[in-house]
């Protein structure tokens, strides 16, 4: 465990800067793209609520809960922006411990849905700690790798980063939440890649992971997970069972056509099966908003990832770059795997679609990550030319 060190230098610089300089350093595009994507999510929540026959504004409806989560996300985003991100470097190790604690806690007291222990009830909300864990893990990894700049040609930092990610992955797999553990892996690979770590050793790491797949398949994965993983290859083999979701999703998307059926006109009510209710929201989006709507979402994701990368690129602090790498990798991986799953080119893994899936913790987690990036952006002391 590391020693706590306070780094107060930046605080003074922050106070000394003008509002105008901060505004110029703030990446408005990043915020706008994220808000638009979240808007799509709310639109789908609205559509779901209407189709389910409930009053849109009644407390507890999907839409109202979505609004509440969105409001909370904006608060978190703003707070994270205002907060000096360098403190995260200071507290990286305690954050890591908290992270493991939260994951251990959900394992111990979590409420299962379909046989898992992912959710922890806090008051009226059900929180999926593994979502928060993703962003905490990005902070911890960013701090670790940033401190090892210049030594990334050697295998040891890579190995160390793997050892750091190992325990959370194990805890998440135990829940069991295969999807989130894959996201952790994607975050790690993305951060190592963009940090400039030696390609040779990254290649070796990839080879090890590939070699481990058959072992994991035999000893770690449960039968229903395997069934879901392979059912995408041929969903019609078991159309009433695990392939049902997939056939439903694809036919829903397909029925959307170029322009979609319009909001609230979908057949699929988003609850294809008791589990993964919201992970298939893109099917509904494709059905109701059509090819054009889906394409807009694709473009928004590309734009957002672009802005995230630009934030990282501009950061002179390697920590900022690494956070951007982590957040970017996370968004890209989840986006590709989730949409791929819905349209039948990826296995079912239970990974939410960033911003659009009505899962509170996922949105909060993303807001937190993007907030840190904005915090990095406005604290880069760029020369005012």
């Amino acid at each position, binding site marked *: 465990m590391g020693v706590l060190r306070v780094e107060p230098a930046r605080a003074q610089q922050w106070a000394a800067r003008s509002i105008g300089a901060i505004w110029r350093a703030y990446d408005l595009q990043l915020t706008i793209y994220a808000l638009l994507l979240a808007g799509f999510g709310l639109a789908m929540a609205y559509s779901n609520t209407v189709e389910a026959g409930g009053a849109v504004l009644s407390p507890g409806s999907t839409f109202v809960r979505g609004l509440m989560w969105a409001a909370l996300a904006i608060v978190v985003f703003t707070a994270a922006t205002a907060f000096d991100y360098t403190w995260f470097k200071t507290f990286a190790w305690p954050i890591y411990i908290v992270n493991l604690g939260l994951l251990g806690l959900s394992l111990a007291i*979590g*409420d*299962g*849905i*379909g*046989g*898992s*222990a992912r959710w922890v009830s806090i008051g009226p909300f059900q929180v999926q700690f593994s979502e928060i864990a993703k962003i905490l893990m990005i902070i911890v990894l960013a701090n670790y790798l940033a401190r090892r*700049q*210049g030594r*990334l040609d050697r295998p040891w930092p890579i190995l160390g980063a793997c050892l750091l990610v190992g325990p959370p992955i194990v805890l998440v797999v135990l829940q069991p939440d295969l999807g989130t553990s894959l996201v952790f892996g994607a975050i790690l690979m*993305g951060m190592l*890649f*963009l940090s*400039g770590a030696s390609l040779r050793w990254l290649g070796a790491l990839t080879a090890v992971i590939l070699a481990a797949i058959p072992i994991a398949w035999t000893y770690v994965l449960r039968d*229903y997970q395997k069934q879901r993983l392979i059912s995408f290859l041929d969903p019609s083999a*078991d159309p*009433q*069972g695990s392939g*049902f979701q997939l*056939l*439903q999703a*694809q*036919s829903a*998307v*397909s*029925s959307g*056509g*170029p322009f979609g059926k319009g909001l609230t006109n979908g*057949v*699929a*009510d*988003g*609850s*294809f*099966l*008791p*589990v993964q209710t919201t992970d298939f929201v893109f099917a509904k989006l*494709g059905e109701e908003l*059509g*090819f054009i709507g889906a*394409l807009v979402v*694709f473009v928004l*994701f*590309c734009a957002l*990832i*672009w802005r995230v*990368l630009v934030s990282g690129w501009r950061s*002179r602090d*390697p920590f900022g*770059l690494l956070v951007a790498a982590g957040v*970017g990798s996370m968004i*890209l991986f989840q986006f*590709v795997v989730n*949409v*791929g799953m819905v*349209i*039948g*080119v990826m296995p079912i893994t239970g990974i939410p679609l960033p911003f659009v899936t009505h899962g509170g913790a996922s949105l909060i987690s993303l807001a937190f990550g993007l907030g840190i990036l904005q915090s990095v952006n406005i604290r880069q002391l760029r*020369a005012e030319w």
Partner: protein
Amino acid sequence: MTDDRPAADRRILRFVAFGIAVVLAVSGLTTRLFYLQITNVAQGVQQVAADTTVTQEIPSTRGLIYDRIGRPLVVNEPSYAVKIRPADLPDTERDRVVAELATLLKMSVGDINTAIDSNPGSRFDLVRIAQAVPKATADLIAEESASLPGVVVSVETQRQYLDGPLLSQILGYTGPIDAQELSALQSQGYLPDDLIGKTGVESVYEQQLRGTYGTETVQRDASGRPLQVLQTNQQPVPGDSLQLTIDAKEQKLAQQAVDWALKTAHLKSAVLIVENPQTGEILSMVSEPTYDDNAFATGISSKAYQALLNDPNQPLLNHAIAEQFPPGSTYKLVTATGALADKKITPTETFHTASYIYIGNTKFWDWHPGGFGDLSLQNGFAYSSDTFFYQVAMRLGVTRLAYWASQYGFGQPTGIDLPGEVSGIVPTEQWKQDTFGQPMQVGELAQAGIGQGYDTVTPLQLLDAYCALANGGTLYQPQVVREILGPDGTVVRPFTPKVIRKVPAPTADLQIMRLAARQVVASRMTYNLIDLPIVVAGKTGTAEFGVRDSKGRLPFHEWFVGFVPAHGDVSKPDSQLAVLGFVQDANTVGNVATEMVKYYLQLHFHLKVDLRLPALLAKGDFYGGD
């Protein structure tokens, strides 16, 4: 300000590579989306329609079972079943839901968990938890459905066996299909929550009884729950019904005779079978102790089931066919027929009988101290002299004895249309070598000749052999199902007697043996059986088994197998009624089996006399041989 970034050049390449990866991935997704939404529109829309509707099975009505007179023995009762779809039951809720169900259904938590865990289908298939649930309970569970995720109450039909234990061994019962059966039968349209015939004719005639399931198109919501039936594609075809050879009234009489004998003699286990020697039809078949098949049809608790399994008298086993016993003196029919047919003895030739004879250096005892002096075949059979038949068996030899035994149907299943039949043992040289690695001893041949030693038979085999004697030499395959009737009552499969073989003994020799069997009764070896106002011929048997007591005596089973000639003349092969009585582990003064059969014959022929001799059923100190 870029000079303070280490390895910046390399990083540019990495960022560009990352960007390219993003573009490639999104292009891939877009391509697939384009294919799904633009080029594939017409087909896709159709598919949505097809996918929200599914084809599902409509269960057919299971065929009924009647007795030979047409009395219904099994009916289908509408009933409620409680099932669980494991995919809808969260793991964390499971303990609570199972506990709640256990209270409502008055089942044990263990039984419910076992049912869920041994689910033969996938997690999305329904698992049967309980059937024959009372309406009030079913209503309660349906009302509580919000707090019982995954629990489904469905209406189905359930078998009700009108006579309960009386016909359990023959009818069997239906029960939930298990994983093994499902994997074998899924291709034939069986469903994971189906009921299937488990034993008895319910299982042997499963295919005919089940019928053919129909299909209907059902609209369902996105989570797969059926909303409404859109159309029926194929009507279900009801199963065929069975008409048994069993006469329920005769079965009751047989049961009455068995109950009386067991109760009077304080015994537990007996068999009584009645067969028509001219056709092989089984008119009644009682195996005590037995069980109530309704307990299984309504879903037996594991505790009750364990109790049945652990009962030393094996109530679940049909002792008439599923267990083999030494036949004792009844087997002398084989020895005698073989020796006559092989011309090893003549009907008039006499053998000297005594307390014992020497075979090698060993004394082989007669059951009767002092023997009977010089006897010919008919009296040797009548008195059941052991020393007589030792000598006959040794003349016949082991190979020919085994040959005649198998001609009479021993050592092979009769092929009756009931499950679980065993084949019995006919010892041969080969068999002795294979089993013990030793050649057959001459003493063992002598023992085999009187139905002791290695010979074992099922009660049904023995009865069938005597039926062949009674009908002049035709060995019929016993049957319990007479006709198969279509749903409209027309005969789909008429009754045809099935001949296993003709016993290759001259009819004259068989006639001699029928007269010898009559002589058994006439000589009062069966006490007052001769006094019945009908003509009965038959043979008693006492078969030692198990472990000797302190005085070197063995416990024994008792047999009587006989037939009633149609017109009072045993020389004619016209009998239409053969009866076998078998009582297990019966150390009584007289032969319980004979008394039991006598009582049955009195009931069957409505005789005005009652010649039962309860004194013979008192506990005796007899032990061994007759």
